[in-house]
């Protein structure tokens, strides 16, 4: 029989591999711009940052301008985007680090590219900088997330759909850093555990899943593709059941590998479902677009959902869905 707990009897801290997080929620890369908020927030956003770790928008070796407009639109129970990894490139990105050095959370840097050497170049440049940067001039960069699964750039999705190519990227990056290394998997494969295993065998410390589903929306008047990129990545509540299934499959295939589960998390119950499927941390993406308050609300709901079921911590609920 379930004995509910008081809210303050729930401890939310989790250990994601070597990373100790205050609670399980992180932002999904590209959905939460720390600096934009910090510049406008009334107060110290670097202290009030709502996620347990910050995953910035993907950075690549060279600057990218991204895809032509339109880049986003709503779909049934979700949204589609084709931003195209718009970013200033690693050199300019590094120059900007002092602006958010005051962030008091671990940072997991999302890295993109078209080939192993491009991913490795980003990490090499950043590691070289971190080795010599004065104290206080950089945020606490504690890990990387290799984005081998962006559906909206040439080469992005193909890497994640090819286990050998995924392993090559992970291997090249593993050689550049001793920091915590996540690989973000694409759901656009028939068996997500194949690339998952390839990434772990090549040296990944953990896995994030899922990225968005490659999809298409038509302009309802012209019946032509609506997005400037023709196709985009589908996210939001529509994909949650598929994402849960994939997280559960990877958790069962690779027990003990730290997982960041994501895909359509809009509520605390959604986050708990990913934990029940084996995730240690949970990424929140599209929900950030529904309002400034989303992460704090989801975290409060997660605490309440754990307490209501008598779970004193996320770890106590982890993997519940994987049993018989």
């Amino acid at each position: 029989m379930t004995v509910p707990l008081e809210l303050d009897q729930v401890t939310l801290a989790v250990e994601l591999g070597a990373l100790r997080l205050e609670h399980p929620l992180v932002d999904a890369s590209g959905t939460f711009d720390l600096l934009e908020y910090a510049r406008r927030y009334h107060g110290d956003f670097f202290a009030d940052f709502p996620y347990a770790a910050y995953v910035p928008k993907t950075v690549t070796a060279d600057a990218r301008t991204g895809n032509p407009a339109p880049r986003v639109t709503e779909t049934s129970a979700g949204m589609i985007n084709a931003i195209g990894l718009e970013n200033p490139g690693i050199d300019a990105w590094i120059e900007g680090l002092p602006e958010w050095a005051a962030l008091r959370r671990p940072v997991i840097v999302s890295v993109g590219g078209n080939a192993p050497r491009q991913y490795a170049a980003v990490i090499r440049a950043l590691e070289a900088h971190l080795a010599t940067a004065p104290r206080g001039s950089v945020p606490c960069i504690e890990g990387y997330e290799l984005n081998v699964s962006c559906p909206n750039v040439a080469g992005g999705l193909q890497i994640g759909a090819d286990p050998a190519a995924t392993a090559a990227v992970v291997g090249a990056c593993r050689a550049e850093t001793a920091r915590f290394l996540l690989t973000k998997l694409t759901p656009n494969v028939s068996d997500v555990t194949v690339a998952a295993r390839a990434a772990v065998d090549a040296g990944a410390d953990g896995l994030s899943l899922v990225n968005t589903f490659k999809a298409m929306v038509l302009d309802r008047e012209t019946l032509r593709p609506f997005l400037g990129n023709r196709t985009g990545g589908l996210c939001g509540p529509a994909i949650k059941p598929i994402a849960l299934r994939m997280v559960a499959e990877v958790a069962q295939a690779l027990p003990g590998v730290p997982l960041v589960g994501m895909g359509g998390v809009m509520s605390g119950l959604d986050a708990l479902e990913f934990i029940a499927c084996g995730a240690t941390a949970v990424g929140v993406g599209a929900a950030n677009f529904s309002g400034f308050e989303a992460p704090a609300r989801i975290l409060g709901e997660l605490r309440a959902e754990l307490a209501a079921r008598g779970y004193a911590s996320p770890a106590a609920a982890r993997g519940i869905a994987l049993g018989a």
Partner: protein
Amino acid sequence: MTAMATDGHPDSGQWAETSHCRVSAVRRFGAFTALELVAPGVTAKASPGQFVMVTVPGGGFLLRRPLSLFTVHGDRAGLLVEARGAGSERLAALEVGETVDLAGPLGSAFPTRGVSNALLVGGGIGCAPLQYLADDLAAAGANVTAAFGFRDFRAARAAGAFAIERLWVASEDGAVGRKGTVMDVLTGLDAPPNTVVYACGPAAMIGAVQRWTIHEGLRGYASLEAHMACGTGSCHGCVVDTARGKLRVCSEGPVFALDEVTL
């Protein structure tokens, strides 16, 4: 407790925080619906050109909809809605007494300091922010002339939602005002050399106004439309090409100098 604001508004609330606002009046003008909301948290900080992100009520909608501030009177914020899809249809169907969630004001405002002659150019739903701008400029003593273009009879009925003393209207089917586009109105106007042009409307209209101001030697500003997801600078979904590179309409805009927009 509300955090002390760094911009001198101690009780004005947090940036982009959501407020629950009651619909206090609804007026319908053809394809357009003018909503008035009790929104003191928005109106206390707002300037013409800024927008709000509006949650579509009733569930089932993931993304909020960006809507320009149409009017601001005391604690009342006016929004003009054109029903284009399921979300805006729901917003256009709001009734007095219903509650909607708003975040804002967001984005950049029309610069108005020192302007003595203003020419406001609007197309379709893009006319919305120009009413608030006209009110603001007129209160500051500027001479305001407006030229609005609408597609057809149903759209042109929106002209009835506006209260601007010198307002010229064109409609493409000739149902209301001059037959043609807003450019046909502009070319017939005699704008004093110190006129500042404020434009908001579809990209093709902004481009035409841009060429016209260059020809006339006038300066001005454009407020741009874009499909947005977050509205707060995070997703990079709403970027436009400018002389300064790709910029976000929601956070670097929606108001840009007319001569920096590349369409």
